[in-house]
């Protein structure tokens, strides 16, 4: 029998995990829009050894939204749109946020 396979939706063990398909993950998007900021707050770090619960180090918090160079941000957004990372709709939404469109 000849089988022509179809596309299936990929899922994880616990459900459908987000898929970014070559696009930015949330962390990458944050890093791209905050080039001089600290990494985004992720999970807290746990320091300890087996048998010793250790201590939890608080996650670092970046400074809130530095609107540094709107023209530069606009240029970066145009690049992301032109290279297919974001859609035109997303570009427009982000442009509105930057306030340069």
């Amino acid at each position, binding site marked *: *029998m000849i089988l022509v*396979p179809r*596309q*299936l*939706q*990929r899922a994880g063990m*616990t459900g459908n*995990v987000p*898929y970014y398909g070559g696009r930015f993950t949330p962390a990458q998007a944050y890093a791209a829009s905050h080039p001089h900021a600290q990494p985004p707050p992720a999970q807290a770090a746990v320091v300890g*050894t087996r048998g010793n619960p250790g201590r939890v180090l608080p996650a670092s918090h970046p400074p809130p939204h530095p609107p540094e160079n709107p023209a530069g941000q606009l240029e970066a957004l145009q690049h992301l749109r032109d290279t297919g990372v974001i859609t035109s709709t997303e570009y427009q939404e982000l442009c509105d946020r930057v306030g340069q469109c």
Partner: protein
Amino acid sequence: MRSGRTVLGPVQVLVLGFDQPAFTGEILAELTRLREAGVVRLIDLLLVSRVDDDTFETLAAPPGMPADLGQLTVALLRGPETTSPDDDSDLAKVMETAAWSLGESVPVGSTAAVALIEHIWAAPLRGAIQRAGGVPLDETWLAQQDLELLEELERPEH
């Protein structure tokens, strides 16, 4: 194998390549043991040979296995006979999310076994996660080098 029972746990599609298929029964024996232990259940198994870029040829079941082995997998994996506008819409939806097809996994000219494996053990855990409001953000397996690192980190003297 095809018991007709309700699928409760997450189902894994495991694709294994074989240069020279030599099924001694060892894999099925282990799967049988895991089934009896309530860990996993082999729902179906399909052997295929990649013919060209678009198609596979299904192969006969190994000796001693049910004659209808693989039919469930074929029905699940095969593309639609015809495409309607709704199908296009569904396909677009799949493509926007995580998409996968057998053609991405098996090189042309090679033989593969496609197993549908229900992880029975995971059903209660998945339910507990959902009841706790947990949302899957990511899921992957550690690579060998990180497994070795983990093993080292787990040693008592560490």
